[in-house]
Structures are given as structure tokens and as C-alpha cells.
């Protein structure tokens, strides 16, 4: 009985979606798919949740600016609902700074304020998932604090966390980092769970999820920067010797330091690879899911019948993509942690002399 009811609800939703879409498409004839998708994956100054009729339901976020012209400015993003500009600041709608806050540069052009540390949608999402991550891990840690080593293994949520932690530590960190792995375990675990949680949050369709956090290059860049610090600030003497005076024939090092330049280049390529890999994977995932959803609206504007038929296809594909993204969410967190472990492991080489 329950199965039949679920199917009926599913069918109802399928047929409700196109009628809703049809109503939407009547207001604006052509749908700019690229714009729709970009609006969803881009960082914005307010968190748009939905539109009921003509009314936008959005969370207003604080904008924090520093400009040479006005000094520090803090105001809510909702001011732009009533007026185009506020104290000379406005949101650019075209050009390089599209969607960003700009001010007039006095020559008829526009420029970004000197500093823009607004709490945007992505920042708020990062805060939310950070808080969630702290709560989750501290909740898990509380269990361990209250139990002894000879107690039974945890069950339920704590058990899942233990399984994940054990897997990351035993399969990723230990074999890749080497004998010093204990020092880097907290960082690598934090990175893993931070990315994994943000990826999962990004898959939720509505607030507090849905923001494209790990598909934003600034976020992945910050994470890669942390790995960069872990690799280069804590690398041992051997590591730097291999960079500046590697074990190669002398003519590769003098008079033109070819190998050292290549090695030096490698230092910066590694975090760059981390940044792009995570960013591109998650962004692509979000884009594909949104594109499948957009199929409904495109075909609906062509014909109601084709649209209804295509709705079914698109919903099936969207579900498939979401499940696939679930897998990708885990894999990308896993890969980021693994590559970071490998890079850290490379920064702790054993003594070469012993190997020969």
C-alpha cells in the first residue's frame, strides 16, 4: 500500500512541476539557461530561497566594504531591493564585475571597492557547515571521552564517524604520510570532513544547503593553501635539499639551475592541482544537475506535451545525477585528503643515503 501511495505522490509531483513551470514561462518567454545556472552556482550577496508570485523570499546578508572614498561601510544587502545604489555602491549587472558590488571610479567607469569582506551566500554556508562540523565532531568526541578503551565499540552515528575516521586514517593518511602521520592526522581529517560535509550540503536543494561552496575556487584555494603550508612549513631538511640541490647530474644544477627551478615550480603546481580538481568536479556536478532541471523549462516553452514527457526523463536523470554527486562528494573529499597526504609524505623523505 505504501509503495502505491509513494508512486502516486511521485506522479503527482511530476505533473505538478510542468504546470508550475508553464506558469513561470508565461511571464518570461525565453529562458536563459546559462544565466539560471550561473545564478545558482555563483556567489551572491543575498541568499535567494524561492519566489512566491512576485515576492522574493531571500535571506538578507551583511555587506562589509572598505573604500578609499567612504571608509568602512556595513549595510544589509536588502537595501538594494528598494534602491539601485546605496552611498554610491551598486551591484554591477554586466562586464567583468557582474554580480559584484562596485562603485563609480569618477571617470564614468566602475571599480571594485578596495576591500569587500561581505558575508555572502558562500561565506554563510561555510559558517553553517563549519558550525555543523564542530558540533558533529565534538559530539563524537564526547562519546569517546565518556567511554573506556575496553567498552563496546560505538553504534549508530558515532559508529559511522568512527568508521569514516578509521578508514581515512588507515587507508589514506598512514600509508601516504609515513611514520610522522600522527602530527598531520587532525589537519587531514578536518580537511576531509570539511570538504565532505560541504559537498553534501551543496546537494541539499534548499536552505541551509544548496550553496556551491566547494565548487567555488576561493574555497578550494584556501584549502589548498592550508595543505601548501602543511607541506612547505613542516617539510624536513631532506625535502628542501631535494628541491634546491637534487640528486641529479651536476650540469642540470650548474650553471643554469634547471632542476631546482622545475622543483620550485612543482611546489606551486601541487596546490594548484588540488584547487582545480575539487573546484571543477563540484562545479561540474552542480551545473549538470541544474541543466537537467532546466530541460523541463526549455521543453515546456516549446510544447506542453513534449515538456510533460521530458519532465519524466529529466527528473529521472536529475535523481541519477544527484546520486552520482553523492558518490562524487565522497570521492572528491577522499581524493583531496589523499593527495594532501601524498604531498605531505613527499615533504618527509627518508635519508637517501640509507637507501643506496
Amino acid at each position, binding site marked *: 500500500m505504501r509503495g502505491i501511495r509513494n508512486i502516486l505522490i511521485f506522479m503527482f509531483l511530476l505533473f505538478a512541476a510542468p504546470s508550475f513551470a508553464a506558469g513561470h514561462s508565461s511571464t518570461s518567454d525565453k529562458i536563459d539557461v546559462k544565466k539560471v545556472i550561473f545564478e545558482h552556482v555563483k556567489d551572491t550577496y543575498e541568499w535567494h530561497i524561492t519566489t512566491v508570485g512576485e515576492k522574493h523570499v531571500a535571506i538578507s546578508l551583511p555587506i562589509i566594504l572598505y573604500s578609499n572614498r567612504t571608509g568602512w561601510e556595513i549595510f544589509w544587502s536588502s537595501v538594494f531591493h528598494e534602491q539601485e545604489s546605496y552611498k554610491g555602491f551598486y551591484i554591477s549587472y554586466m562586464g567583468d564585475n557582474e554580480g559584484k558590488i562596485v562603485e563609480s571610479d569618477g571617470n564614468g567607469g566602475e571599480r571594485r571597492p578596495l576591500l569587500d569582506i561581505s558575508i555572502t551566500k558562500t561565506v554563510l554556508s561555510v559558517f553553517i557547515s563549519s558550525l555543523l562540523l564542530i558540533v558533529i565532531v565534538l559530539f*563524537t568526541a564526547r562519546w569517546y571521552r565518556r*567511554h573506556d578503551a575496553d567498552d563496546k565499540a560505538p553504534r549508530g552515528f558515532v559508529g559511522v564517524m568512527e568508521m569514516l575516521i578509521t578508514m581515512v586514517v588507515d587507508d589514506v593518511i598512514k600509508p601516504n604520510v609515513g611514520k610522522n602521520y600522527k602530527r598531520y592526522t587532525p589537519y587531514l581529517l578536518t580537511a576531509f570532513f570539511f570538504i565532505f560535509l560541504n559537498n553534501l550540503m551543496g546537494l541539499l536543494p534548499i536552505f541551509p544547503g544548496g550553496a556551491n561552496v566547494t565548487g567555488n575556487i576561493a574555497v578550494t584555494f584556501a584549502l589548498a593553501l*592550508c595543505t601548501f603550508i602543511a607541506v612547505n612549513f613542516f617539510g624536513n631538511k631532506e625535502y628542501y635539499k631535494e628541491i634546491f640541490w637534487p640528486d641529479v647530474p651536476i650540469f642540470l644544477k650548474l650553471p643554469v639551475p634547471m632542476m631546482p627551478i622545475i622543483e620550485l615550480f612543482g611546489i606551486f603546481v601541487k596546490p594548484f592541482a588540488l584547487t582545480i580538481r575539487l573546484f571543477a568536479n563540484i562545479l561540474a556536478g552542480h551545473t549538470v544537475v541544474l541543466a537537467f532541471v532546466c530541460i523541463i523549462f526549455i521543453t515546456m516553452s516549446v510544447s506542453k506535451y513534449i515538456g510533460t514527457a521530458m519532465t519524466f526523463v529529466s527528473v529521472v536523470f536529475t535523481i541519477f545525477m544527484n546520486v552520482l554527486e553523492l558518490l562524487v562528494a565522497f570521492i572528491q573529499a577522499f581524493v583531496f585528503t589523499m593527495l594532501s597526504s601524498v604531498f605531505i609524505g613527499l615533504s618527509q623523505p627518508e635519508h637517501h643515503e640509507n637507501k643506496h
Partner: protein
Amino acid sequence: MSFLLPEAGLLFWMLIAFGVVFFILYKYGFPVITSMIDERKKFIDDALHNAKLANEKLAGIEEQSRQILEKANAEQVKILREAVVVRDNIIKEAHEKAEAESARIVATAREQIRQEKDEVLREIRAQVAELSLAIAEKVIRKELSDGNVCDEYMNTLLDEAFEAPKDKK
């Protein structure tokens, strides 16, 4: 290409947020969990090791008890065998003793019988001699009254008497 340019403000907040998360989890989160997991792993390893040791010990004890049992069995068999030997010896000895005794008794009896027989014979002989004397007396007394017979008889006796020493030679 605004997608490929990291936004400074977002980078700033991201570094702060991640830094705070990392600091808190580094201080209160993951080390507690990982050290506890390691501890539990060690505990399980120890427990397994101890169980193995105990098993080995138990196997040793079993072996020992089996050996003791075997020894006891062997001892029992040996004792039984010895007991059989002792019993046989006792019986044999008793037999021999009884035989010797019976032989002795028989011998004594035989000796006694012989002695008694001899005595009886002697007595019989004596009586026979007496009787023969008496008879001879009577015979002689009658014969002497009849002259011829007496002479004849006297002659035969004399012949015998003369012949007897010849036989002895």
C-alpha cells in the same frame, strides 16, 4: 571568467572559518577520537594476544594432564602385573609347601606302616616259631613212640643238615 578568480573576501572568511574549525577540532575533536581508537585497537590486540597465550597454556595443561593420566595408567598396569606375579608366586610356594608336606606325611606314614608290618611279621614269625615248636614237640612226642618213623625222620634231618653247609659254600 569570474569563476576562476578567487574572491578575496570569500578567501578571507574561508581561511578564518577553516582555521577556527581546525583549531577547535585539533584541540578537542580528532586527537581524542583517534587516540581512543588506537587505544581500543591496542586493547583488542592485547586481548587477542592474551587469549592466545591462555589457549596455549590450556593446551599445555591438557597435555600435562594427559601425560599424568598415561603415567598413572602405566603404573596401574605395572602394579597389576606385579600383583599377578606375586599371587602366582604365593600360590606356587603354597603348592610346593603343600606337596612337600604331603610327601613328608606320606613318607612318615609309609615308614610307620613298614615298621608296623615288620613288627607284625616279627610277631607272626615268633608265633609261627612257637607254634611250629609246639607242633614239632607234639609230632616228635608221637613219633618217638613209633620207632621206625623216628629213625627214618632222623636220617632225613641228618641228611639235610649235612647238605645245607654244602649249599652255603
